[in-house]
């Protein structure tokens, strides 16, 4: 149900001029007036763009002004109001959408519409550089990665940071990821039908991450530490005892926005993983060229980061809930240790790629094989990964929409997997009787034992 694509009424100048006049600073006495005017302006844009009789898309100037208010960090009220407005406008006036033309869906791109991103290709970037003053509130690759950096820094310095700025960064991030998603998802659908790489190549996400201004590895690391910090903060059970009302309302809201920012990080990861998959297909078909640049697939970067910083492993797995890719990450982690034919006798026909949960559990199916594994990987890590893999299996079972993929990745029935899971833990225990079992793993064992007895009785 894309909105009508007539020339926006705001573009004839009347609405724009009327709304922009509110921001005129003539006769402004103090910051309170400024604040009131900005709030009135946001309300004017809302009523023109969303609520009026014939809502029409705001003009670029209006969008720019709203986006600048979002970044002005003057008050929580204005930050939230402008953020809310931009999110709703994004929903109402998408830049990219699908239309049904006959049998297939066609992608429509509204090129002239406003975007918070300013991404020229390399040729144009010099030109853009010249008039940055007019567009320095917009985001390019560099600013986008700086934003994530700022978010990481803010959550490292607990308490000492400017609360409002932190919230502002988080809602900015949320809005930007939302914009990326609104651009990528319809393109993804269109790609599945047409297999046309150009559709994806032109996606904002691809251009954004393809730029050399963004150091991809660093960017992914920052995102991972965001996921982890949030997990930690929630566990620390932040107290609300703050001196002033404003502070407590900031603390209160920032928890909510952190949760949303976390969801945005996850969304972003999943989009990039999908982008990487498509890229791989396009590479195989020879559709890509040197101009498409080179970038490490995100799964590799994540895996590398988690291998070298094992403290990140547990919070990351708890935070990253998307079943398919979580399982993919876990299985790839195990697959590094699978190559030795000595460990996996007689079943070496399984190629590295289709490691299943069942085969991962088989690595621990006897005391001897478990011993061999423990020599290569830390037993605590093994337990953690198995418990998370098992949890993913529980959400796979019974959901018919995932059935085909799920069966492929599980490699056995839930009952078998539950039994094997328990025995894997028992084998690890035999090797080292004093091995620590975390709360999460205990709960996993409880679940496995409960399910086993239930499924056996059926």
């Amino acid at each position: 149900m894309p909105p009508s694509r007539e020339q926006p009424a705001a573009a004839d100048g009347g609405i724009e001029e009327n709304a922009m006049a509110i921001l005129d600073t003539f006769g402004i006495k103090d910051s309170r007036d400024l604040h009131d005017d900005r709030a009135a302006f946001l309300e004017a844009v809302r009523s023109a763009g969303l609520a009026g009789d014939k809502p029409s898309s705001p003009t670029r100037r209006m969008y720019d002004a709203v986006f600048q208010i979002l970044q002005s960090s003057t008050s929580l009220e204005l930050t939230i109001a402008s953020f809310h407005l931009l999110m709703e406008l994004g929903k109402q006036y998408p830049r990219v959408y699908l239309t049904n033309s006959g049998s297939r869906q066609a992608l429509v791109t509204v090129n002239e519409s406003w975007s918070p991103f300013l991404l020229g290709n390399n040729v144009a970037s010099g030109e853009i550089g010249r008039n940055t003053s007019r567009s320095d509130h917009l985001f390019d690759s560099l600013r986008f990665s700086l934003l994530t950096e700022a978010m990481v820094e803010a959550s490292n310095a607990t308490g000492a940071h400017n609360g409002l700025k932190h919230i502002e960064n988080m809602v900015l991030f949320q809005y930007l990821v939302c914009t990326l998603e609104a651009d990528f998802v319809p393109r993804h659908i269109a790609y599945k039908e047409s297999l046309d790489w150009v559709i994806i190549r032109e996606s904002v996400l691809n251009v954004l991450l393809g730029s050399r201004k963004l150091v991809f590895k660093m960017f992914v690391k920052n995102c991972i530490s965001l996921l982890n910090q949030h997990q930690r903060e929630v566990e620390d059970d932040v107290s609300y005892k703050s001196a002033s009302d404003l502070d407590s309302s900031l603390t209160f809201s920032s928890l909510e926005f952190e949760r949303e920012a976390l969801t945005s990080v996850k969304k972003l990861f999943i989009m990039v993983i999908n982008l990487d998959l498509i890229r791989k297909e396009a590479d195989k078909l020879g559709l890509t060229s040197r101009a498409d640049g080179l970038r490490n697939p995100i799964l590799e970067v994540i895996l590398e980061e988690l291998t070298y910083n094992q403290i990140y492993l547990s919070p990351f797995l708890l935070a990253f809930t998307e079943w398919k890719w979580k399982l993919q990450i876990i299985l790839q982690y195990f697959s590094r240790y699978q190559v030795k034919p000595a460990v996996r006798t007689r079943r070496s026909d399984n190629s590295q790629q289709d490691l299943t949960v069942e085969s991962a559990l088989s690595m621990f199916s006897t005391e001897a094989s478990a011993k061999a594994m423990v020599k290569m990987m830390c037993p605590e890590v093994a337990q953690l990964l198995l418990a998370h893999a098992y949890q993913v299996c529980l959400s796979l079972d019974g959901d018919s929409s995932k059935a085909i993929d799920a069966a492929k990745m599980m490699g056995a029935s839930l009952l078998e997997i539950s039994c094997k899971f328990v025995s894997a833990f028992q084998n690890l225990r035999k090797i080292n009787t004093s091995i620590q079992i975390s709360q999460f793993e205990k709960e996993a064992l409880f679940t496995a034992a409960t399910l086993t007895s239930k499924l056996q009785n059926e």
Partner: protein
Amino acid sequence: MRIDDPLDFEGEDDPLLTVRRPAKRKKVIGLDDLLQDYFDSGKDELKASAAKSKGRPKGDNSDDEDKKIREKEIDFCKFVDECEEKAKVMDPGEDVPQWGQRVFGCQKLPSILGGTGVEKCQLLQSFGGDEQLGFDLEIEQGEAFLEGMLMNGWLMKLVALYGSVEDSIASWALTALLYSSNKKLQDSASEFWDSLLSLNEDDKPSVNFGYFPSYSILKDAVLNYGYLHDAPWSKTCTSEIAVADGPPQNITAWLRVVSACCKIRKLHSVFSPSEAEDVLVIVISLFLDRRLEGLPLILGDCLNSLISYFNTSEWESSCLMVAESISKRVNMDLNCLRIVDCITGTNDRSKFLRSQLALQLLKNSFGLKVVNVERILKSVTSINVKEKECSFFMLYVHIVLMDNLLFSSDAFRNKIAIIDAWRNFLRNCSTQIGCTDWRFYASKVRNKASYLLQGAMLKRPAGSGSIPAN
């Protein structure tokens, strides 16, 4: 360095430089000298021309000049007097408080918190695998163990696989959602209930459960958070609150579960229409609490869910009840404008509520017994902006409300007489209040009126009729 030398920061570090320099400066320039220079240069028109006329033999136009000067002096004095007077008038009005009303008082401890008995649930009781497994799972911790199961997602997985959930666990999770001070537990319980209360494609729940949240549980919770149900919401300004208690910690979880309850009406009506009205009033009033300033998205979601909860036949009368109840309790200042703004008007029901709320507020403001738009319009437009006692702040509030009443919904689109009278009044406001009118809120009224007037012109459908000449 001489003591009365001007400070020279650049030279201070270098003693050699200071030795050479001072000879050049003969004299320190004092304030008096500057003043003298200023007068001599003739920048001060009054004094300078006075000096000229004294020193010079009288010319043809000296009389005129004298007169001019005197006139200027008189004008200036008058102007200063005026300013002073205006400043006096302005002062008391200057502190119109920002929006913000206290809707929560003291938080109370709920009575049900002592022991939920959830450790006696089937799930834990029937587990006999401890010895078999050879692990000590610490299940005997009971509630704490279940909390872990909930927070780490295992409980939801089990429930989904079983296809049903025990009442004791469902009610325990709801209590955790409403009262736990552990944020993670709150969030997990919230997700748990969200998934219980979501329907699949066939409008059936994916999990069987017999225990539903009820109006009384949810209402009790919000009362325990300290919601001031019968007492008037007190006026507060951000700086005035001296209490240490933050916002009710579970309010977001509460809002989420209320939203979720609204979505299963096909399956189970959690609220009767009058109960839903009550909840809607509570949710709208939360927009006024400064401490919840960061939550307008969650509040907006909940508001929209509640608005769409009503059946078509119920909506109109319920909407009136809600508007009436809100309008009685909100202050007629920036608070009432905040409330009206927060109802976003992005769908028909929301538009209707917005205009009804504006109508009720105006009705109360003018002390009318029955709703009569013509009379309200007359009362608003009877204000003479040229009068000294004119309260521009109230006028501002009335203008904004009136605009919402007339243009939020379709009801008045075709009442040309009303619309025209309204436009005339806006035109008067925007033209009769001078740019230099310094009275409090006068410029805001002027700007708002011209903005609304402009908007009203643009709203006029292009093809139909002409703008009345006036």
